[in-house]
């Protein structure tokens, strides 16, 4: 194999190892990035929506209690504001269905909420229901608890999915580092081996040829060319020997 190709081969090995590891690591890192984005898009927003819905539900419950106490204005205002927030976040969650079983859960939340809403939509103040704690306990609070449990289940479903995705991101991140680590170790090994081979087959050969040329210039020349390598350097050593013999013959002729 030509000397140039032999020297290039070592660097080529290093380049290929680093290039492939680099491309792989970049690809893995990109997938880690998209997984993180996925966590935000798919899970975090649904969890936030569920939290807001629970908050709205609890404010609605307070509104119902205010109506029970006969405070119509404050009660209705609280209920209207909380209802608006709940519907806004329920619609948001319905547009962001990403986990298996989430759509069915949202459907049941909407049904349960419609049922719960129907309980406090009808007039309470100045009716027999005002101050009727038994009616609140049996009719309203149960429906409220049902919706809240479903919304909490929605949050838990997304939290579990978030945990799973986060775990896979951790694995991917660890995977992303590994090609680089392997490439570093492999390149270090190649560097050591390549340096030794260069030293042994190129540098040492050149030094021996230099020594040979120096000996020839002093009129001494070994009979045999002692080089382990073949190819250009071996040829060079032979040419030096031929040159020496030719100059010796020319000198004798002269």
């Amino acid at each position, binding site marked *: *194999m030509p000397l140039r190709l*032999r020297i290039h*081969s*070592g660097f080529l*090995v290093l380049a*290929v*190892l680093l290039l*492939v*590891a680099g491309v*792989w690591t970049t690809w893995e890192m990109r997938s880690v990035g998209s997984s993180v984005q996925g966590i935000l898009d798919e899970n975090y927003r649904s969890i936030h929506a569920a939290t807001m819905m629970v908050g709205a539900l609890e404010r609605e419950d307070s509104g119902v209690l205010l109506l029970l106490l006969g405070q119509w204005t404050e009660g209705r205002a609280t209920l209207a504001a909380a209802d608006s927030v709940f519907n806004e976040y329920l619609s948001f969650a319905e547009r962001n269905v990403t986990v298996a079983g989430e759509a069915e859960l949202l459907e049941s939340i909407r049904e349960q909420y419609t049922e719960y809403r129907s309980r406090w939509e009808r007039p309470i103040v100045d009716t027999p229901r005002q101050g009727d704690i038994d009616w609140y306990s049996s009719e309203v609070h149960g429906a409220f608890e049902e919706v809240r449990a479903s919304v909490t289940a929605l949050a838990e479903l997304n939290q579990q999915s978030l945990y799973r995705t986060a775990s896979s991101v951790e*694995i991917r991140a*660890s*995977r992303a580092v*590994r*090609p680089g*680590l*392997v490439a570093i170790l*492999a390149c270090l*090994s*190649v560097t050591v*081996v*390549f340096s*030794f*081979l260069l030293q*042994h*087959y190129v540098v040492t050969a050149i030094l021996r040829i230099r020594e040979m040329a120096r000996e020839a210039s002093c009129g001494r020349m070994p009979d045999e060319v002692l080089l*382990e*390598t*073949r190819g250009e350097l071996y040829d060079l050593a032979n040419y030096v020997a031929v040159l020496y013999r030719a100059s010796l013959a020319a000198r004798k002729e002269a």
Partner: protein
Amino acid sequence: MRPQAILRYVGLALLLSCAFMILSCCISYAGGDDGLLALGYGALVAGLIGLLPLVFVPPVRALSAKEGLTVVVLSWLLSCLVGAVPYVLWGGPFSLTNAWFESVSGYTTTGSSILSHIEGLPRGLLFWRAATHWIGGMGIVLFMLAVLPAMGMSGGVLLRSEASALAREGLQAHSQQVVRILWRVYVGLTLAQTGLLWICGMSLFDAVTHSFATIATGGFSSWDRSIAHFDSPLIEAVITVFMVLSGLHFGLLFAAAAGAVRDLWASDVVRYYLAGLAVGVAICTLSLQLRDGSGWWPCFRVAAFQVASVGTSTGFATADTAAWPGAAQLVLLFMTLQCACSGSTSGGIKADRMVIFGGAFVRHVRQLMHPRGILPVWREGHPVGREVLEESLLYIATYLGIALVATLALSALGVDLLSAFSGTVATMGNVGPGLGSVGSAANFGHLPAAAKWVLTATMLLGRLEIFALILLLTPGHWRDTAGY
């Protein structure tokens, strides 16, 4: 010592691993699993590092004994290192320590695993695990000799370095012929078992991987429950027969296949090995029957399989031997220490050395009775030379000494005594499963990282028959550069 010559041959060993990684890549690609990239990069690393010395170093005509030994040991170590790359890159349960453990266990044909869910591995990696067994079973260097018949004088040196004196004894032929015989027996047994397992109802993939693991006396299965997964007496019978055959001296097997069956039966080592297995099966069957009373056939079925599995250093499982009665466990422990014949792919102290040890013991007793008598130790109808006798007894003593030191180290690391001792002898004998928390139904994954490093050292010591590795670690081995 010429490092360039060593690099050339170690490079060839890495290229061998590269070839099998490429094969695993093809399986991964065909199955569309996620092991392709890890195996591909592993093949690239092995291939490029292996190829580089070939570009510079011209073929070496003759290697010195020291160089041969260094080539053998470094080939093992670097193949194990490169073999761990696909595991490291695939990730999952493979930390650096776990990947190294799995790779060493594969190449040394130990079969101990850190995996609790083997079926979760992609097919390409499963094939790679089995392939490491097959490469290691025959000895990486013997593989090289078989693949590259043009090694000339270097081949003889490498063969002497790879195979012990006892292993070479049954092979009275030129080194190239020896390699050819071993190679033919190895491939022949693998093909025969693959065919039979396929006929018995295994998928081709399972048949190939389990044949690789059987003939190499490895023990890696592609199923969590090992051979128990198939629940087939026929499959168990086929594997049992091939495990026993793989524990025989390959030279004698070759002779038997060529018609000289008498040679096989004439061997006192073979007779001892087969009788030992039979007695082991009988004791285990009896103790299981006495404990469970579940019938002789089911007890015989599991006992025969487990005794053959441990007694040949394979390590497949059809039962949880950690739950077996004490007597049966002691039989398994003895089998784990002893294993099968020299010149086979099995590990352990080997039946040959046990026969020599027994002979030396009897001779000593007789010598006490006849102090002036000249009483040789006999083996295979010939008196055992003093050198072989000393080497065998020293090997047994060193083997047990190292096993005790490793047990001590594992105990110090918090492993319970039974698991520590059985785990040590199982890894050192290249058997695979031990007892206690590292039994046939468990794995080595829960052990501390340091314990796994200790066990990989014992695997390598056992595979390289101790002295080769110790010699390489001796500073004097590297200091003296003359003599080739």
